């Protein structure tokens, strides 16, 4: 992506006034998207973003600058700005010779989306629109979106690291609106993988569209969600966001080391039922949050965070791992070359447990069954988190009965984690997610088996 001598000279320029580490992150991202809305192809969009971010670290201070100008002079100017931003250090530090390192790709890409004719992408959208509208006369509006991106990155630093990755992602989503006497309801379903256009060899967009439409139709007859504290059973694949919010963010080392996490200082302690093992895994082939290297050049890894209920580790980025003198965990990520990296999740999931999913429902006299969760949010300092239920049902006498309208659930991360009393053997990964933190969004995946929280607060009105 960039001449190695030029990289070496840029790192040298960045360290001219001293510093412990200089890093260059080069990114070249092409993307395309198409929207089918209101019965027609609205428009196609193509985009290109290319540039470099340079950081210089002196003590606890990071200087950072970025540029879209990848010429010798453009990079030199950015290196100088980053060096000036970092407090002046001892001086005379030399960048080590670069040694190229290969990291294994989680999976191969069969069909690059940019090689696929645009007409084929548009055709997928049309098929999805047809299938959603055919699902019921009450479907009044459909929006189908296609998107792909190819993000090539290069990371080099003054320790001599030089490594690259080529990340291809393909996404398809459908939102359907159903209209009835009770007003309008929406249903959403999405599919995203770190693969190319071959995604559609193994997945039918019609299925996706029908699922979105069904979700909207079911909610037309839904009753308001109950209000108050009750048992909540979460279906397989639908509830990974629970762990993402309930404890995932609280296990990010930047928050932990600043005292902004309720999980600080709890390594080795029991934080959950022995049936719970939580993993963050950037190597999980084809999943939405996978890659070969993170955005600091660390190789992706499978990290066990909670093992049999015991908190085993946090997630780390380069700076905090260096400071603690511990191995990196492959969790240093950034939205683009314009952003500084920080600790982020990849694919976060709970391993399958011993319980029969049907028994979990049958042994819950009354409560709520959540088949699909929407997004969530957490206050890591208190551990309080919310997440939305986009498809949910009442549980009455151990049976799943009436559909419920949308609402948020609220709980406290450590309390919920410690209270989970059933874990199914039916693991599934969920929908692709975009995790936001301090204004940066990165793609993440999650997954869970069926599980039960004996007491969660359901934010309904009934």
């Amino acid at each position, binding site marked *: 992506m960039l001449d190695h001598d030029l990289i070496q000279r840029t790192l040298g320029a960045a360290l001219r006034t001293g510093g412990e580490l200089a890093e260059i992150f080069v990114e070249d991202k092409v993307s395309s998207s198409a929207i089918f809305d209101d019965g*027609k*192809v*609205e*428009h*196609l*969009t*193509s*985009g*290109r*973003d*290319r540039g470099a971010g340079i950081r210089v670290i002196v003590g*606890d*201070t*990071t200087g*950072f*600058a*970025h540029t*879209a100008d990848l010429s010798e002079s453009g990079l030199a100017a950015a290196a100088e*700005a*980053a060096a000036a931003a*970092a407090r002046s250090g001892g001086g005379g530090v030399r960048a080590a010779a670069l040694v190229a390192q290969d990291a294994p790709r989680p999976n191969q890409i069969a069909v690059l989306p940019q090689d696929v004719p645009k007409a084929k992408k548009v055709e997928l959208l049309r098929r999805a629109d047809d299938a959603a509208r055919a699902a019921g006369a009450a479907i009044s*509006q459909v929006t189908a979106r296609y998107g792909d991106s190819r993000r090539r990155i290069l990371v080099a630093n003054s320790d001599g690291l030089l490594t690259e990755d080529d990340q291809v992602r393909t996404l398809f989503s459908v939102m359907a*609106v159903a*209209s009835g006497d009770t*007003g*309008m*309801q929406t249903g959403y379903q999405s599919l995203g993988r770190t693969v190319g256009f071959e995604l559609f060899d193994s997945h039918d967009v019609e299925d996706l569209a029908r699922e979105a439409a069904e979700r909207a139709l079911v909610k037309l007859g839904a009753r308001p*969600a109950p*209000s*108050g*504290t009750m048992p909540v059973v979460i279906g397989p694949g639908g509830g990974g966001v629970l762990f993402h919010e309930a404890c995932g963010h609280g296990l990010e080392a930047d*928050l932990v080391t*600043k*005292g*902004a996490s309720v999980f600080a200082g709890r390594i080795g302690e029991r934080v959950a039922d022995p049936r719970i093992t939580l993993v963050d895994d950037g190597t999980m082939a084809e999943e939405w949050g996978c890659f070969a290297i993170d955005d600091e050049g660390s190789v992706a890894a499978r990290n066990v965070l909670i093992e049999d209920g015991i908190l085993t580790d946090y997630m780390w980025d380069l700076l905090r791992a260096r400071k603690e003198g511990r191995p990196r965990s492959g969790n240093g990520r950034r939205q683009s070359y*314009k952003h*500084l990296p920080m600790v982020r999740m990849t694919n976060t999931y709970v391993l399958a447990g011993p319980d029969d999913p049907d028994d979990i429902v049958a042994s819950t006299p009354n409560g709520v069954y959540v088949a699909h*969760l*929407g*997004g*969530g*949010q957490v206050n890591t*300092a*208190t551990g*309080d*988190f*919310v*997440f*939305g239920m*986009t498809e949910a049902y009442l549980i009455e006498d151990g049976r799943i009965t009436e559909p419920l*309208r*949308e*609402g*948020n659930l*609220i709980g*406290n991360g450590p309390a919920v984690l410690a209270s989970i009393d059933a874990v199914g053997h039916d693991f599934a990964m969920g929908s692709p997610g975009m995790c936001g933190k301090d204004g940066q969004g990165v793609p993440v995946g999650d997954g869970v088996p069926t599980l039960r929280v004996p007491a969660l*607060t*359901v*934010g309904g*009105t009934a």
Partner: protein
Amino acid sequence: MAAHAPELLDVAARVAEMAKPGEQVEAYVARGTSTTVRAYGGEVESLTQASSAGVGVRVIVDHREGFAYAGTLEEGAVLDALAEARDNAAFGEPDEFNGLAEPDGVEPADLDLWPAGLQAVPTADKVAMALDLERVTRGRDPRINGVRLAMYSDSLGEGAVATSTGIRSWGRAGTSYLMVQALAVQDGETQIAGGLSVGRELTDLSIDEAADDAVLRATRLLGSTKPPTQRITLVLEPRMTATILGIVGGMLNGEAVLKGRSPFGDRVGQAIASPLLTFVDDPTDARSLGAEAHDGEGLATRRNELVVDGVLQGFLHNTYTGRRSGTASTGSAQRGIASTPGVGAGALAVAPGAGTHEEVLGAVDRGLFVTSMAGLHSGVNPVSGDFSVGVEGLMVRDGALAEPVREATIASTLQRLLLDISAVGADLEWLPDGTGGVTLVIPDVALSGA
């Protein structure tokens, strides 16, 4: 506008002038610089100096629309974007209402949004502000034992739109802000809350204002408990009001209406809110940080009344939705480099009602004063209007603030909340996102807790 022809407008105009016969071409060109300083533990944690630029090109031919963008103004990349937009247009479906904006004779407001002094401020002064902000916040209260984030940030930007249909617009603006997140600890419990100070010039900012805001918000939540499930009167502080009205504003946009995704689509002329409520979108109001003289299609922004005395007046439109609705753009096109113009409010604000914050609160016997909401993206559905969010706040007893509560939700529908408003304060507060809110009272809302 500056006396000289801005260079950026020339860049946009050159692209627009490349339109072939039968083709409409629009170029939106923007560039900006920003400085961000984060302080932590008495040191500079990071200092970022950034500059960025980009172009978005829209081509309409035979009523088909295509779009492409590039994150640079290099000539080759700009030409590539034009070529890609042309190619993409071939795949859009014809829509008789597709077409670029045309000059509509509305004069742009004369707004001075450019912080001329900010450019001369040395970086060292910005660093000092971030360091002071952390130090002052830590020293404010013995219960504050840390600061997760203390930040100074500013940005200066300019943007231009030129079209083959005769649009030529240019504008520039800048803002700066201080943000701090304070950690309050007592008896093993930690609470975190943020404080802000926002302005255009660095001299508009107040370290005390940001620190006091964060410290008050974090410390007053200490000892909070989960309230019982009940129906209760909500007292929304101005920033909560602004957040909710921002969502309502999105439901009053012409695109949502035309595509059958707004529950208010057929309600013009009808009461959709309490007669106490009036709100307008007025990007020509320089008090708002969302103020702009031009919208994303280069038309002059204007004052648009959305709800007056509870009655829905109309919707916001860009050129496409205005034309298709049989009306015209309201100067409400919103966009970034990477997307075609959508429709949205720029400076939505509630018209002040009667009474100070204290007077409005003082009239509530028993209620919940809401100071933060969580899960707006997952619990509020702008199509159905279903509304369910996590809240923190303080109970109100006999008109005074009482014990803090957390881990609870409030739920209703947006339609219901608007109709039930029983008091609108006069305490207009402008928020960082450009919206303006007041204290609102809404009785009989479901609160889920223990």
